[in-house]
């Protein structure tokens, strides 16, 4: 049929255009390749080149006197990563990322379960929209709102006083950071867990009950194991996003809340040591590479 289209076109005006479109119709992969080449070239020459520049930069040094980057190759920046306080900062970052991931899992699982098994179709759709929309509200604004809430005379302590509970002064602590990260990334956990739970056939649950398992046993032996890929997929987001963040620690964290992101940020600005910042930024990259390998074994990639 492509040949037919070509034959009708032969005698008509605009023959050159026609032969171009006929050629591309006959060679679909060439057409696809032609279309995709512009964005690919743009990405290779800007984005991939930038990632290479980042890695190369980590092997250079900054002249302490002029503050200019000197192009001599060495591993000093990476060696410096092993001097305090950097191991502590890296350890703290990974710890917070793990705590945030765990909290998101605990909050998201029953909620996703509710969406799949209890909520009506309409309610489920509405709640899914209500879960995703906050992701589009400025991330900075959402972090800032917690600064107002956690304030000594903010909404949290006001509510606690109304409930006749003691004051909670967690503003500018690691607890605040943990809470805010959990809040910010929670939707990223809910969605894959929801998708994972939705795929479990209800007959599995029925079969488990028919065989005499209690609701709790079914949850533990049937539903949870099948939900692991979804939880793993969600954890990729919560873990990775926490590893690279510097806004939340800067706004709601305290003096002892420096994360990798803050140190990178400070080295670009105040300390003016871009090569060291680059070496430090390679740490979350390396951690994520290992993390992704582990999560792939748990089946996370099929649930993304």
């Amino acid at each position, binding site marked *: *049929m*492509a040949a037919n*289209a070509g034959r009708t*076109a032969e005698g008509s005006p605009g023959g050159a255009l026609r032969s171009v*479109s006929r050629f*591309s*119709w006959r060679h679909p*992969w060439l057409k696809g390749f032609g*279309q*995709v080449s*512009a*964005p*690919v070239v*743009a990405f290779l020459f800007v*984005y991939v080149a930038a*990632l290479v520049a*980042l890695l190369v930069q980590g092997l250079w040094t900054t002249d302490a006197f002029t503050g200019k*980057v000197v192009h001599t190759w060495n591993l000093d920046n990476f060696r410096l990563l092993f001097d305090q306080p950097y191991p502590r900062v890296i350890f703290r970052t990974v710890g917070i990322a793990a705590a945030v991931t765990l909290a998101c899992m605990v*909050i998201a699982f*029953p*909620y996703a379960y*509710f969406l799949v*098994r*209890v*909520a009506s179709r309409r309610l489920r759709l509405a709640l899914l*929209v*209500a*879960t995703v929309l*906050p992701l*589009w*509200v*400025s*991330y*900075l*604004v*959402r972090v*800032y*709102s917690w600064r*107002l*809430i956690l*304030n000594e*005379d*903010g*909404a949290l302590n*006001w509510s606690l006083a109304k409930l006749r509970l003691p004051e909670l002064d967690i503003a500018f602590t690691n607890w605040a950071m943990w809470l805010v990260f959990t*809040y910010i990334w*929670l*939707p990223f956990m*809910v969605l894959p867990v929801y998708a994972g739970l939705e795929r479990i056939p209800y007959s599995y649950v029925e079969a488990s009950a028919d065989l005499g398992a209690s*609701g709790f046993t*079914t949850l533990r032996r049937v539903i949870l194991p099948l939900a692991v890929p979804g939880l793993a997929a969600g954890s990729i987001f919560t873990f990775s*996003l926490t590893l*690279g*963040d510097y*806004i939340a620690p800067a*706004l709601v964290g305290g003096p002892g809340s420096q994360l990798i992101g803050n140190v*990178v*940020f400070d080295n670009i600005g105040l300390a003016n040591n871009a090569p060291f910042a680059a070496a430090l930024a390679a740490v*979350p990259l390396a951690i*994520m590479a290992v993390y992704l390998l582990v999560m792939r074994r748990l089946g996370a990639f099929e649930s993304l």
Partner: protein
Amino acid sequence: METRTTRIGLWAWAVLVVAFLWIPILIMAVYAFNSSNVQSWPIPGFTTKWFSEAWHDEEVRDALWLSTRAALLATAVALVLGGLAAFGLARTRFFGRDVISLLFVLPIALPGIVTGLALNSFFVFWGIDFTLWTVVIGHATFCVVIVFNNVVARLRRTSGSFFEASADLGASGFQTFRYVTLPLVGTSLVAGALLAFALSWDEIVVTTFTAGAQNTLPLLLFGFIRLGQQLPIVNAIALVVIVVSLIPVALAQRLTSDPGAGRH
């Protein structure tokens, strides 16, 4: 299968989660109308004066203008590159296709600080000054994938026989694009553009590393908040930012969930 108690517990949990997600945003909206300079709860009274004060602030206006220009340009770049990538990858198979898909997803898969710092190193290496264009390039990296995902999703749902029929009836590739492809994927392009705009307009992490001394609106707000300056104005702008990012997203949602989508 769930017992009554379990169901009640799950209902309560869901209510708590939705409250957790939305109460901070609502509280932020209330603070925008705080009549006092002091940011305590509950606010003593309502006023709208901070909106006009923010509007008449030179710095705020400059930042607003820069953010808007950067978002529009980044969206335009994303439409062209993301659209082309989607057309090229959705219908045809060739060697390296999956690697190319991964390439476009990288900017949102890697932590923002990595993308930001990488671009920063790149610009410094080539001696490129930080201007509007460096911000646009930074934003375009993660906006491309938004348009790409939207258009690819639509193309996958669209039957290839439309394009074959068009060719059978003697249309050139360009006529097919104009009269068949564009009407079919048009709304997904618009939706992708709206989402890209919403994402770019309030992005802060990549922007920090690609803006140099310039201030986009989020960068200006971040500076104010860190130094504890101009907080009433910050609150007012925060509400504006919430509304400006939610409107395009709501529109995009309507465009992509069109009832005709399931027909093909």
